[in-house]
């Protein structure tokens, strides 16, 4: 696609701008910022990726994945600011998920150890893991607040913090995983995944594209499960102190 053709696609930005202006939605500024940011960020990353792919230097791959991990951690931690040490907990979770998935992919020669594959798949895994972490933390913090009575009931009856928070923890893990599982049920019927569509548009064999997409979908199932479970089990102990009390900031 030439830059001239690409510039014509700005029609798709004009439509929401006109609608926003006509209906006084006040979204013009945000739409323009979003457009400019996406152009700058994606073009920049395009050139960076081209450079890294050409160099095939391990250090650059490492730096790129680190950048993804740091950005995703800083973004996700906001949702769990009431949980002590949330930054390292989210960071450790995302790192573990990344190492686990890449180890399996590379160990079993599922994908080649090239920058092209490692970075692209890492982006999808870390991005998905970040969304899962946000979904989990959102749900977990609201469960802890809204079901404080139940937590204190179990503690009052002589239960441990783990027993007191068990239901809330399981509910939050389950709730955060549901969107991933549900979206996979309709994949191919309702929506064609972006990566697969991109490959097909780029001229790849559709069957090959489907195979890669299946790999990604299965990978995302693991990502979802491991992220929620690991973050859950890292998070709940810090809600309590040594005296098995729910910490003050979590009291309503």
């Amino acid at each position: 696609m030439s830059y001239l053709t690409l510039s014509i696609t700005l029609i798709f930005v004009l439509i929401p701008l006109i609608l926003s202006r006509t209906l006084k939605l006040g979204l013009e500024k945000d739409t323009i910022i979003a457009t400019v940011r996406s152009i700058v960020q994606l073009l920049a990353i395009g050139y960076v990726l081209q450079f890294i792919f050409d160099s095939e230097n391990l250090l650059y791959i490492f730096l790129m994945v680190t950048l993804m991990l740091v950005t995703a951690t800083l973004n996700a931690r906001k949702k769990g600011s009431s949980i002590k040490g949330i930054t390292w907990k989210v960071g450790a979770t995302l790192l573990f998920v990344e190492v686990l998935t890449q180890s399996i992919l590379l160990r079993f020669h599922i994908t080649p150890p090239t920058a092209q594959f490692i970075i692209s798949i890492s982006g999808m895994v870390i991005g998905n893991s970040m969304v899962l972490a946000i979904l989990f933390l959102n749900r977990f913090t609201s469960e802890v607040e809204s079901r404080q009575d139940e937590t204190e009931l179990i503690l009052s009856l002589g239960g441990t913090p783990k027993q007191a928070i068990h239901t809330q923890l399981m509910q939050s893990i389950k709730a955060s995983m549901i969107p991933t599982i549900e979206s996979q049920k309709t994949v191919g019927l309702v929506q064609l995944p972006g990566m697969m569509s991109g490959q097909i548009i780029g001229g790849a064999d559709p069957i090959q594209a489907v195979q890669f997409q299946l790999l990604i979908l299965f990978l995302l199932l693991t990502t979802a499960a491991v992220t929620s479970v690991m973050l859950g089990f890292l998070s709940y102990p810090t809600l309590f102190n040594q005296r098995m009390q729910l910490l003050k900031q979590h009291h309503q």
Partner: protein
Amino acid sequence: MTKRYKPAVHFQHVDYSVDELPILKNITGSFPEGRITTLVGPSGAGKSTLLKLCNGLISPDSGEIYIKDKEISSYQPVELRRNVGMALQSAPMVSGTVLTNLALPLALQGKQLPEKEAADLLDHVGLEADYVHRNIRDLSGGQRQKVSIARTLVNRPQILLLDEITSALDRTSQQEIEELILKINRKHGTTMIWITHNLEQALTIGHYTWVMMEGEVIETGESDLLKSPVNEKVKRFVKGEAQ
């Protein structure tokens, strides 16, 4: 007030605050062993916070709390909470049957509650044995509260903390719960600390009362003090509540 009875719970200059907002200020006093002491006072007086301090759900910022002459922090939290039971107005339940809920205190220790014992407990709180297998959702407010009290009794607590357990109930259920509490107190000699908004209840059921306002204990004594309080604020409160 503590002349004839040993203190089951004793507070010594206890302060507690949340986000630097004082909730309890310099609380000193005792709850006599084997007696029913009611806590009365307007909302936001710190009554529920005081109860949570008694079973170690929270700890004071300063001051000491003694349970049976032993400083509260010398108890293991689990041991303390089994000894100091608690029942709440909302009577929170886990989903499932009455038996699931009655068995909860033992299930938390990895033990089982025999059905016969569950039936005996229900009988003790005035519910028929066939309630054992009923779903908790099908119970009325009064019945839930009875199950909640029965569940607390599974741990055989020596002290029972009751947080407005009759506030949401109709008059008949309220009387049934009052009779049940009196029965438990007489039969087991359980020390009761009971938060209530009902001054008549405090007068008729409680042996002693603490009047609390804005995080402080304003007046304490035998429940009759509510008939002729000394403190002006308490006089106004009693008058307002009575109307």
